[in-house]
């Protein structure tokens, strides 16, 4: 395990060192201490390494992650794992706003709560939140899954495309074109698999499923007066 102390090393030096690792590197286990809210920590990783961060990182932690596994023993700032491509990011504490925003792949697990706009514009990422999420979560979500074991704030899934949303707790309100859908055996199996992959203990049968009513896809003649 290689330990990097951010009290002595700059974020830029750490990130550059990680970016230079070849795919077949033997330096696979990293530990980062004293993050103290620094921005863009371990962003842009592109190798199958495992990085553990002890403390609270700031904005855009593990952004654009590819293949790497990032574990945060703390809370994360805005834009956690933004535009993640693959790999896994796991936060033991809470995540702030826009966690997993625009994510294209991989798995994001938040063991605490996530803030506002979780999974906004998600494009294929799987997000599992053990706690609750705030308002405007899954706004314009395109593909992928968002699983929330707790409650969800207002305007959930507003203007959603084809992402799958699963909620165990209460939903304050649904956004435009987001509706509750039937939990089929197919979806139940998918959810069970995802919870297991995320290592979150929850009974998939207690979740409700939400998704797109697909009424915003095409122009509707009833709306002609609006133009």
């Amino acid at each position, binding site marked *: 395990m290689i330990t990097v102390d951010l009290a002595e090393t700059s974020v830029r030096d750490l990130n550059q060192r990680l970016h230079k690792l070849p795919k077949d590197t033997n330096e696979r286990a990293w530990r980062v201490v004293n993050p103290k*809210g620094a921005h863009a920590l371990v962003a842009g990783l592109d190798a199958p390494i495992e990085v553990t961060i002890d403390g609270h990182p*700031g904005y855009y932690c593990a952004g654009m992650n590819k293949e790497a596994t990032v574990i945060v023993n703390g809370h994360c700032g805005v834009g956690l794992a933004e535009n993640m491509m693959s790999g896994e990011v796991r936060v033991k504490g809470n995540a702030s706003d826009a966690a997993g925003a625009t994510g294209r792949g991989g798995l994001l697990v938040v063991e605490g709560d996530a803030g506002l706009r979780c999974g906004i514009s998600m494009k294929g990422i799987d997000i599992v939140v053990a706690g609750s999420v705030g308002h405007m979560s899954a706004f314009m979500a395109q593909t992928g899954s968002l699983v929330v074991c707790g409650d969800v704030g207002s305007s959930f899934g507003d203007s959603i495309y084809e992402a799958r949303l699963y909620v165990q707790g209460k939903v304050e309100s649904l956004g435009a074109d987001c509706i509750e859908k039937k939990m089929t055996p197919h979806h139940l199996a998918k959810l069970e698999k995802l919870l297991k992959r995320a290592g979150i203990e929850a009974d998939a049968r207690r979740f409700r499923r939400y998704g797109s009513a697909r009424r915003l896809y095409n122009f509707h003649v009833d709306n002609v007066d609006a133009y």
Partner: protein
Amino acid sequence: MCGIVGLFLKNPSMRPKLGKHLRTMLIEMTERGPDSAGIAVYHRPAAGKSSKLTLFNADPKFPWREVGGQLGQALDTEVDFEVKANHAVMTVGADDEIVRDWLRQNHPEIRVMGYGRLMEVYKDMGLPAEVADRYGLAGMEGTHAIGHTRMATESAVTTEHSHPFTAASDMCLVHNGSLSNHNNMRKWLKKRGHIFETDNDSEVAARYFAQRLSEGASLKEALEAGLADLDGFYTFTMGTRDGFAVLRDAFACKPAVLAETDDWVAMASEYRSIANLPGADKAKVWAPAPSVVYTWEVKAAA
């Protein structure tokens, strides 16, 4: 973009280090606001019925001693003053309203930055570290303090346009965001006797809360009223003589982090400002929820 920091000490033994901690917090917000910075510190109370005013004139050779002498003679009272760069803290044995009236009539070139019994307000152009050190923030003790680092969007970069804004005795407000109905609110407040010193939307918010407090609202009630009346984006942090409050608008697109330990409560735009406080790694850390008023009160000095 702007940066906000606030520190409220629950443990009296930390009070001598209030300024030192706030300085560290403020400097961490340099990237969010390098144009100008301001601080309000709830510092040593003026004795008896005296009031304390923080005054500003851009001229570094401004004759503060003469003004102090004239003021003392006019009001037949003692005037103490301490000059810090282009600011002067005046302690006067009279009500702050009388002093402010006299200054307005006799020295309109002086700007009153803050007034009350405890609060001192310093704001100036430059990087947060320069501003903090120009006014000796690190050496200031007290119960609570608020700071702001400004990257201007709606109005000019001047000392006057910098935050915090004061609109009542020992009350100040810092704001990250922009209000969209400030013109209407300004008219509404002018009708109620408020005299505006800048065209800054944040001054409108400060005067709005002062108005509600003067109508008898508690700190919490005043901020809750703001949720209905102030339209726009905001994270506010407000200080009063014995209170400290945080509020975000319903959309909450301006960032804010709160942290609390047994010893202190800290507010900042980002966690990195809080990270260096003693015990920050063990603190309860959370994002203040939209449209929820958070308040803390100073307990009687132990």
